[in-house]
Structures are given as structure tokens and as C-alpha cells.
């Protein structure tokens, strides 16, 4: 005998009555499980309409959110990783790169572009998490360095949108040195008195946190973003017990004094515009 019995017969929808729903039409919030249409979700800046969960988005979305009329000039778009160590783990790094480029239609984990934000000139370097976890290798370092060179030459403020698991292991010490490269370049920005806004989004960890992401004249984040040097799993293993609620969230990091502000995505553009205006006038 079965444990459950159907009380009413015939409540299953027959095949001919089932409606076709194309993929990607609906969005289900991973936090509160509310389901809304992707159009609605996009109109709300990829933020859940019921619980305000900020979905991870990439450079395309951030550029669209920030640049006036989505107009910008991308620079150094063709820069790619060269696999200097001929690295192989469970898969060849060169093959991993080729696959990821094909799948994501991105050349690496960062895009750099300049344009206007509420009328203010700004260079934005925005990381893409879907490219090998937004990891920082030579390309991320080089593109940040070149965008800073452009900012220095044109006295343009810089905003780096971080979203990264940290350094890219397949470039080993080359990745490590990108921390020194980007931070050294930022020291030139500071010397020249050109503002640098660091925007830390979910997640910002490891070598990215321990270099440019924490070096903003302003450090700003989004609600609920994970911001850490050592990730939660590693910390849990170190201390051998569970982590306190909310540990390493943007709210926690703000409370500890390492962020200037947390800004809702919907208010990001106007806030960045206002802040740039503060620096300029």
C-alpha cells in the first residue's frame, strides 16, 4: 500500500493543455524564491522586486546601468591571456580559455570603457564573474593598468567594479604580481589627485580584495555582497566553528569600517554622479 493517495482524479494537466514557456522568460530569486518575469527583473536593475536581492550581473549590465544612454568607448577589448606557464590542471588552461571565450563572448574577466555618468566623465573597469570566476590574471592587471594610464593622461576619474574569486591560479606568480601592478598604478592616481572609486560587488575576495578593491578613495558596495580576503570556507576551517550570521557581508564590512557606503543598485547611477560632482567642484 502506498503512503499517499490521490483524492481527486484528473488534476494533472493533459499534454495538449500545457503551455510552451520559452527558456529565460522567468526569473526565480535564489533568496526568497519569488518568481517574476525576466523583463520585470531587468526593469528593476536585476534586483528582486520582493526581497531586494541583488542578482550578480556583468560588465554589459553595469555599463548599461551607469553610462548615459548606454554610450561608451571600450578600450583594449582585444587583450587576451597568453598562458605564459603552459599550465595544465585537470584541463589545459589554453583550452579552458578558448572554451570560456566561446561560451561567454568575453575575452577575459574585465572590460574597460569610458563615457559619461550623469554628465560626468568616468572610466569604468568592470569585472565579469562568468569568466573563470572573475579571476585576476595578467589580462585583468594589464587592462586596469592601461585604463589608469588613460585616466592619468586625460585626468579622468576611475571606477573599478570588482567581482572576483581572487587571483587566477593558472597564471601563478604572474597573477600574484598583478596585485602589485594595479596597486602601484593606483599610487600614481593618488599622487596625481585623480579620484578612484572602488565598487565591490558580490563576490569580492582574495587577491582582488587585497589590492585595488580596498584602495578606493571611496569604497562602495552593494547590499549583501560577499567581501573577504580569505573566503568563508577557509575561515571556518581555520577557527573550527561556524561563522556568525552575516559575517563578511557588505553590511558587516561597513560596520567594521572598511566601506564608505552601501548603495542600492537602483540608486547607483545618481549616487556616483553626485559623488563625481563632489570631487569635480
Amino acid at each position, binding site marked *: 500500500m502506498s503512503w499517499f493517495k490521490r483524492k481527486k482524479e484528473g488534476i494533472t494537466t493533459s499534454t495538449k493543455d500545457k503551455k510552451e514557456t520559452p527558456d529565460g522568460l522567468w526569473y526565480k530569486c535564489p533568496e526568497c524564491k519569488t518568481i517574476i518575469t525576466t523583463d520585470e527583473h531587468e526593469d528593476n536593475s536585476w534586483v528582486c522586486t520582493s526581497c531586494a536581492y541583488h542578482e550578480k550581473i556583468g560588465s554589459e549590465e553595469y555599463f548599461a546601468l551607469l553610462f548615459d544612454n548606454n554610450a561608451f568607448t571600450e578600450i583594449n577589448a582585444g587583450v587576451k591571456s*597568453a598562458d605564459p606557464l603552459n599550465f*595544465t*590542471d585537470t584541463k589545459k588552461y589554453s583550452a579552458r580559455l578558448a572554451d570560456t571565450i566561446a561560451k561567454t563572448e568575453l575575452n577575459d574577466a574585465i572590460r574597460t570603457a569610458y563615457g559619461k555618468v550623469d554628465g560626468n566623465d568616468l572610466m569604468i573597469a568592470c569585472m565579469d564573474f562568468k569568466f573563470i570566476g572573475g579571476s585576476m590574471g*595578467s589580462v585583468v592587471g594589464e587592462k586596469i593598468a592601461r585604463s589608469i594610464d588613460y585616466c592619468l593622461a586625460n585626468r579622468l576619474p576611475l571606477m573599478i567594479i570588482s567581482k572576483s574569486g581572487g587571483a587566477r591560479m593558472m597564471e*601563478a*606568480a*604572474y597573477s*600574484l*604580481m598583478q596585485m602589485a601592478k594595479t596597486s602601484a598604478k593606483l599610487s600614481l592616481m593618488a599622487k596625481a589627485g585623480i579620484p578612484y572609486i572602488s565598487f565591490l560587488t558580490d563576490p569580492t575576495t582574495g587577491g582582488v580584495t587585497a589590492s585595488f578593491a*580596498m584602495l578606493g578613495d571611496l569604497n562602495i558596495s552593494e547590499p549583501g555582497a560577499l567581501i573577504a580576503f580569505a573566503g568563508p570556507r577557509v575561515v571556518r576551517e581555520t577557527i573550527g566553528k561556524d561563522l556568525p550570521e552575516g559575517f563578511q557581508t557588505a553590511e558587516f564590512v561597513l560596520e567594521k569600517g572598511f566601506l564608505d557606503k552601501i548603495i542600492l543598485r537602483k540608486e547607483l547611477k545618481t549616487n556616483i554622479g553626485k559623488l563625481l560632482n563632489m570631487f569635480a567642484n
Partner: protein
Amino acid sequence: MTYLEFEKPIQLLVEQLEQLNETAEKTQVDVASAVAELEAKIITTRKEIYANLSAWQRVQASRHPDRPYSLSYMDAVSDNTFIELHGDRTVGDDKAMIGGFGQIDGRTVMFVGQQKGINTKMRQIRRFGMANPEGYRKALRLFKLAERFNKPIVTFIDTPGAYPGLEAEERGQGEAIARNIFEMAQLKVPVICIILGEGASGGALGIGVGDKVCMLENTWYSVISPESCSSILWRNWDNKETAAEALKLTAKDMLENKLVDAIIPEPIGGAHNNIPEAHQIVKQHIITYLKELDAINPEERINQRIDKFCNMGVVVE
């Protein structure tokens, strides 16, 4: 003496030599020629073994329990003039990061470095050489102190990484390391960084931005330890040897890839085999580098330092 697995042939010979000496003492037989032969053989065996270490063995050598740590170099290089200075002036004094003034042939130098413990109790107190944010902030305070009084800086790097603890995260481990890298790029005084043992990731780089970045012969420097790399990329702990090879983390590889400036040779059989000699070699290298760096004016030195790091990385277009 502790012998690592690959040092076993040396251990056998040393034991033979000891036995020979013992018998000679008892029997009053002249064994001088046999002793000389054995001693020569020990030297060639040491040379041979250390010339042909695999990457993973190099990592093991860098962690040799008898290897001298930073404090031992600070004392010896400064002919025991080293005066330790404590505290970050904000949170506390981190025992995993030490520093202070010392004089090399009469010239004052600021020493800063990670320090591992020399026995079980000290290893705990020094957190195995893994510094907390206040350690990096103490280092920065000492860098700034040195800069203010125009004293060159020598850092000794020997760490398995920055400490990944709960309080370290609360107090901004990432920010502390980032700030050090940023500030070190602009220091007006000469900065020499020497990797004495382990150079793991941001924890090492946090005191590793210098005009001369050098590695002792049997050390490693990379973005991650081979063990952690194995656990992340292969999802098990068994690929550490493969990971060590793949990461190209030895002094030789790092120099070839132009990620460090020089290799400092070690005594035959590694630094632990002749600690006073290791001290002297490091001292002589510091003296040479200081002379070289003194000749460059501060602004130019900063530019060269920044340019050097900005040239690291390989991309295609």
C-alpha cells in the same frame, strides 16, 4: 639535525662518519684518510642532491625545520645590533611579523619580516609566520618610520600566507595587505626584499614590493601553496607535486620569468646546513644591493620600482 626524505643518503653518510670516528677513538687506529674520503663524499652528495631537487622538494627544503628564520638573520646580519620594535599603534603587537632597527657595518637599516616559531609553543604564538592585519600595519608603521629618517628597508619574507582567521577578516586583512603594497610602491628609501623560506601569496607580497626582490636558492614564491592549489584545482590533496611543478614557483623559474630580480645562493646542502655562512652570504648581498640602490636618486628609484612591477604579466592582442 633533522633529515628530509630526500636527504636520507646524506644522513647515511653522516652516520657512517660518526661511527668511523667512534671506532677510531676506541681502537686508536688511524682513519684520517677514510674520514677525509667520507667527508668529501658527504659534500659531493649534498651538492648533487641539492642541485637536482624537484619543485616539490624545493618547497620541502624551504620548510626545513632546521632552517634559520628572519630573527636569526636580523641578529646576524646586523652583528647583533638589532633592536626589535613593537606594535601597530592601533590594535596590538603581532608576533608573526617582527621588525626593528639594526646596523650593517655601522649603517642603520630597518628590518621587517615574518617570523616562524622555533619550538611548539613559539610556533603557536607566532601563528606559524602567518601575520594578522596588525602585523602588516606594524610593518607599514616601521616602513614609514624608516622613510622619515631616510633609512633603507630590508624585508625578510617567510610565510605560508596571511592568517585566514575570523578576527583577521574583521580587522581588514585585505585592506592591510593592499595598503602595504600601495605604500611600498612609493617609499622614498631603498627597499630590498629577500625570500628566506616560503613566499605565499598576498601574505608575502604585503611586505614584498621592493627595488630588489630576491629569493634564496631553496625557497618558493607563488600565488598559492602547492597543497592548496592541488585542493582547489584537482579537488584533492594528492597533486601537490604536480601543482608545485605547474606553478613554476622555484627561484630559478621565478628569475627566468622575470618575476624576481636575483637568486641568492645558499651554502652547500641548504641554509640549514651552515647557518653562519647563510647569514654572511645574505649580509654581503644586502651590502652590494644597497650600494647599487644608493646610486639612484629616490624619484628615479620609485619610477623604476613601479615600472618593474608594471612590466609583469604576459598578454596577447
